[in-house]
């Protein structure tokens, strides 16, 4: 009799739980990201943001496997194969760099798995190479540069000096800027990838008579450029995408970055409830301010969780549809996908400010409203 009663109670509890949760299926997620070597700060932020969302979720059936690609394409490919074949993951995510994404994503989606990009957005995957199983939760690579071009028009710059490393993403950056910027160019310079001394370029900037400088120099290159630029006494205003002014890097640039305008789809002062909760909980969990990359990791995980809420990951069509509607509270505010599964979103202009002792960004304007990337028409979806 006692046993029976116990059984009845637990059965009741089960029914209650089931009815209140509707449906939340499990899934196995493979994350391939850069956790060692150059650029590992980005991968660590994506991972931390992603895992924060997973840990906050009620859905305890989601399993995440994380591996380090050390920024090597061949290693990323091996890990992807292993995750699909022996770990049997349903969804892959995590890659930071476009060249690694190009090596991994096409074969992953061809095997019927889902790939959600928390960072890289190469143009090939946004245009002709778009795929129903590939979702980009961050941006198409050109977006932030395009926004800075639009901003330069808005504030009336007429003669920009533009600068990027001599590699594909550098060329995409300057192309993106020029796509929107309408003024003249005082100079267009490609520097050696990984260069850390910009004295020669800064002297040319001084001599060029430019009224603004736009640069895309990710990682240590940007830190070096900004410090040297500040020391040179050249006072032409500087513009750039968020990458060189994000939370992980600002500390190393120091006061040299103060006042610089940069473009981003996210900022930690973006005024919405999801973002406030995210910034507070990220700080509590990791003891530092979240970066752009952390916000992208967080959004990616929440998108997956929202889709699992309504659809079984094994039912590819239903799960794909559930991803596409993107019913989740993005830290960017409104979030929706365009026809090519890339975000249509606002891109803001931020300014580097000092909050107490900590350098951070605050939003000062909107550069592009509900912006769609330039390759969407080329995608046949």
């Amino acid at each position: 009799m006692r046993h029976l009663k116990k059984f009845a109670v637990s059965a009741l509890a089960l029914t209650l739980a089931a009815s209140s949760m509707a449906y939340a299926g499990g899934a196995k997620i493979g994350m391939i990201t850069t956790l060692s070597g150059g650029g590992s700060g980005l991968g660590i932020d994506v991972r931390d943001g992603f895992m924060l969302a997973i840990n906050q979720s009620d859905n305890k059936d989601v399993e995440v496997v994380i591996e380090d690609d050390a920024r090597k394409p061949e290693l990323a490919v091996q890990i992807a194969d292993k995750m699909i074949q022996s770990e049997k993951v349903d969804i892959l995510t995590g890659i930071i760099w476009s060249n690694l994404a190009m090596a991994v994503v096409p074969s992953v989606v061809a095997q019927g798995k889902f790939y959600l990009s928390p960072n890289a957005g190469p143009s090939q995957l946004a245009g002709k190479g778009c795929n129903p199983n590939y979702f980009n939760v961050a941006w198409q690579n050109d977006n932030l540069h395009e926004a800075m071009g639009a901003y330069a028009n808005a504030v009336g710059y007429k003669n920009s000096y533009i600068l990027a490393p001599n590699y594909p993403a550098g060329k995409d950056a300057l192309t993106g800027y020029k796509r929107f910027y309408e003024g003249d160019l005082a100079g267009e310079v490609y520097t050696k990838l990984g260069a850390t001394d910009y004295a020669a370029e800064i002297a040319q900037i001084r001599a060029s008579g430019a009224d603004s400088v736009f640069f895309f120099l990710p990682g240590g290159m940007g830190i070096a450029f900004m410090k040297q630029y500040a020391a040179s006494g050249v006072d032409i205003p500087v513009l750039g995408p968020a990458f060189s002014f994000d939370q992980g890097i600002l500390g190393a640039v120091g006061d040299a970055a103060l006042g610089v305008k940069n473009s981003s789809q996210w900022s930690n002062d973006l005024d919405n409830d999801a973002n406030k909760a995210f910034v507070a909980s990220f700080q509590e969990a990791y003891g530092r301010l979240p970066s752009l990359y952390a916000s992208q990791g967080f959004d990616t995980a929440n998108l997956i969780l929202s889709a699992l809420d309504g659809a079984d990951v094994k039912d590819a069509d239903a799960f794909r549809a559930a991803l596409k509607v993107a019913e989740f509270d993005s830290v960017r505010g409104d979030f929706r996908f365009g026809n090519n599964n890339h975000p249509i979103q606002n891109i803001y202009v931020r300014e580097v400010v000092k909050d107490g002792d900590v350098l951070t960004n605050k939003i000062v304007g909107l550069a592009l409203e509900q912006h769609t990337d330039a390759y969407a028409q080329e995608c046949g979806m």
Partner: protein
Amino acid sequence: MTAALFFEQLLNGMQFGVTLFLMAAGLTLVFGVMGLINLAHGSLYMIGAFACAAVAAATGSFWLGLVASIVAAAFAGAIIEVSVIRRLYDRDHLDQVLATFALILIISEGCRFVFGSFPLFLDVPAILAGPVILPGGLPYPIYRLSIIVVGGLVALGLYLLIAKTRLGIRIRAGEADREMIAALGVDIRTLYTIVFALGAGLAGFAGAMVGALQSVQVGMGEPVLILAFVVIVIGGIGSIKGALIASILVGVVDTLGRVSLPSMFGLFMDPSAASSIGSSISSMLIYVLMAVVLIFKPEGLVSQNG
């Protein structure tokens, strides 16, 4: 290009050359005296930069950081010499390359373990911040100017050390004949440790000075290491004088090439393509220089035997 701009670029080239010299001087000493290829020299450069950033952050003084960079790198160099390098002198170069490459990996990951993967902050001291107006009305960063001066002083100091002191005589003797100097009662093991620590200290010093200008992060040493090898090959292995001449040459050629080639191509191409091709060719320029030097002077500009 105006004369003022040309002069400024010349200064930039010299400053770049001087920082290369600080790296190359240690490398060429170790290679010349001890016959050892030390790939981990770039890691000592990184250790210097991290030590300077950490001490400067803790004490607020860049100068203490600078002292710490030399001490830390020299100390690390001495430990590495005693524990690892000492076993490699009689091995062939391939073993040395393998062992010192392993050191790069160990030191890089160790640095990440201690300091984390985000770049550290290190800024130039307030007294050297900002530009100074040179004769002719040209503004130039004081810090870069001081690097040129300090590099010149280090070169002079090294010259005096090698040419005028007893330690210098022993170093030169060790270079010429390792067995004979040991037979004469000089403690060759200690001498090697001193030379290695000296080279390491110089690399750490360079790392700290350049770190304030660029960024202090894991892996910062390897690109400089490659250039430093180019410098010692051009200059003649084992020669401090050769390293000085070659590093200034490489610095100036690289800087002027970077500036003038894109505009040269711009005369007969559209600007975008000219910039892209010009920068690609200018990044090869120092290797072309190295090839040309080796054709005419296979032992480098300053040959030890000539």
